[in-house]
């Protein structure tokens, strides 16, 4: 088991002929992900790495029976690409593109929710189920199959965390980067529930950051619905207020969204919060005893 992606994933790559799209298609394929088609308007009929390219997602789905799509198109086109994927009968859409306008994301998340299609991102590194499928831009060789589920608002911080876990002998069931934008697809709650329901996951690592109230809502959800152990780290504990730290989500303002508030919310519901990432493996081991 695992969540969201696995051996049965049949993946489409939207933007497969672009620089990033083709590079990561190669990486994903190398990892063993079942990539069945690419989409690039005007390039239908070509192939990339022996993968057939179609003009539209609909054509690609009809020809291949794909159930998942990953999006690498430039930000101004990403909103439309998500809508196209949502319209084509897929189950899961992952948008890697960075810099998508918020109003486009409101339209896209609303539409995919109505259609019952799961969305991850935009502005995220994707996800991996070690040993089964890599659907994203995460560096594959740091992951190890195991029983820790990980979800994160950050990319490279996830990699740091994963290598700490792997070095400590803690493998992962599935690792998901949910992205740092103000309006995005799946959030902590939905993923917490999926990990709760996944028999392979025994403990959950949640990597949050300053800004927004996603962590506070996650804490509330954990209190009400999650029985598995959860440990957390919040990046930006020392960031000055009012500054945008790279992620659109990472802004502290109006006295909400600070690391202190998030940490307090987690500790109030029994989630151990690490003060630095290196503490995470030990915290998990304590919890899993």
């Amino acid at each position, binding site marked *: 088991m695992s969540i969201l992606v696995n051996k049965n994933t049949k993946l489409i790559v939207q933007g497969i002929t672009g620089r*990033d799209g083709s590079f990561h298609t190669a990486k994903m394929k190398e990892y063993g992900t079942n990539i069945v088609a690419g989409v690039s308007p005007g390039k239908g009929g070509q192939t990339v790495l022996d993968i057939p390219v179609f003009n539209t997602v609909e054509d690609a789905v009809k020809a291949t029976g794909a159930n998942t799509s990953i999006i690498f198109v430039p*930000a*101004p086109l990403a909103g439309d690409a998500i809508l196209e994927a949502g319209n084509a009968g897929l189950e899961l859409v992952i948008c890697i593109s*960075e*810099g*998508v*306008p*918020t*109003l*486009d*994301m*409101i*339209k896209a*998340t*609303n539409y995919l929710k109505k259609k019952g299609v799961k969305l991850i991102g935009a502005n995220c*590194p994707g996800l991996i189920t070690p040993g089964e499928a890599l659907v994203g*831009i*995460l*560096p594959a060789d*740091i992951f190890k199959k195991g029983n820790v589920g990980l979800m*994160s*608002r*950050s*990319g*490279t*911080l*996830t*990699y*740091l965390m994963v*290598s700490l876990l792997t070095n400590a002998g803690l493998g992962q069931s599935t690792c998901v980067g949910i992205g*740092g934008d*103000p*309006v995005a697809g799946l959030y902590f709650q939905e993923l917490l529930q999926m990990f709760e329901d996944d028999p392979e996951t025994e403990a959950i690592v949640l*990597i949050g*950051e*300053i800004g*927004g*109230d*996603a962590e506070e809502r996650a804490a509330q959800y954990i209190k009400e619905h999650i029985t598995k152990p959860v440990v957390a*780290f919040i*990046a*930006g*504990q*020392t*960031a*000055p207020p009012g*500054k*945008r*730290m*790279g*992620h*659109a*989500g*990472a802004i502290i303002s*109006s*006295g909400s969204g600070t690391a202190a508030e998030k940490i307090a919310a987690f500790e109030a519901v029994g989630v151990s919060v690490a*003060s*630095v*990432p*290196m503490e995470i493996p030990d915290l998990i081991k304590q919890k899993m005893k």
Partner: protein
Amino acid sequence: MKIHEFQSKEIFSRYSIPVTAEKVCYTTDEVLSAVQSLGMPVVIKAQVHAGGRGKAGGVKLAKTIEEAREAANKILGMDIKGYTVKKVLVAQGVKFNAEFYVGLTIDRNSKTVVFMASSEGGVEIEEVAKENPAAIHKFSIDPDLGMTSFLARKIAFKLFSDFSLVKQAVDLFQKLYQIFMDTDASLVEINPLVITDEGKLLALDAKMNFDDNAMYRQSAIEKLNEPTEDEKKEISAKESGLTYIRLDGSIGCMVNGAGLAMATMDVIKHFGGSPANFLDIGGSSNPQKVIEAMNLLLADKNVKVIMINIFGGITRCDDVARGLIVALDEMKVDIPIVIRLSGTNAEEGLRIIAERNLPTVNSLSDAAQLAIKLCENCSEN
């Protein structure tokens, strides 16, 4: 991106939202001539991209020419939270009998635009939110419907009982939503919205922020951008694919990824050091980026030691190492550098670094502790 009150009101006017008669002025003479045409009294308001200008003395009522001159002299050139006041807005004084707050912003939770309205206008809305959250009514706007008349009416009835005001408010709220959507705003706010003695709604103040990600399709808005010197550096960094924010500490950080950059700062502080900046060199491999990042760090005289923390993913460690070598060849670097490379092509990167006898460390903890130690040594010099 932020714009000034007067610019927000210009946009409001284009949508026929009633605002005060007013004029932007850059000198005291201009203020005096504006006063002539507007008549007394006037309110003179600093136009800076900082909140709390009222508390800082940046807003003054003038009932006579002399008061106006005094206020203009005082406010022009004033410093508000690091911003120098270069222009003021001279607005006709208006008699009113009630103040309201209305605003639109993005709600991460419902993934919609939300409309906020409160009868407690004219004060800082953050204070109201803290002390009396029930006084702020929030309405999620269905993206498929937009600001329908019925929703606007529902909101208006929360603020007003007089139906003539409700009708004005419905029109106003629908226009505000239209502005929000048309301009890719992230915030549209009127505080206070007042009822004049003639029974008309009027926007006494106006505030708009915008979604940076959407500025590529909002050229008219983007033209209004007035970055500060620090912001200019950040913008120029962004154009090179870097996100740079200057802070007060002494350890210059170069990291790939925003989350890892923040975590690196957290680790430095955890061990007792202080970061000089947030610097995210982003996701793709490019030696030139590393050079530009080094330039940014070296330009900051507070930086006593440089700490590089790269986790290779898309970014390849050997590219970072090569960029660093080029940078070191091009520029005189007389401060210590601590380097941690990990992930994609880390071994090759470390080999390149080792050739130059630069210190490398294995873990982030070690890196932070070494940087702090080197920094303390520097300070002693």
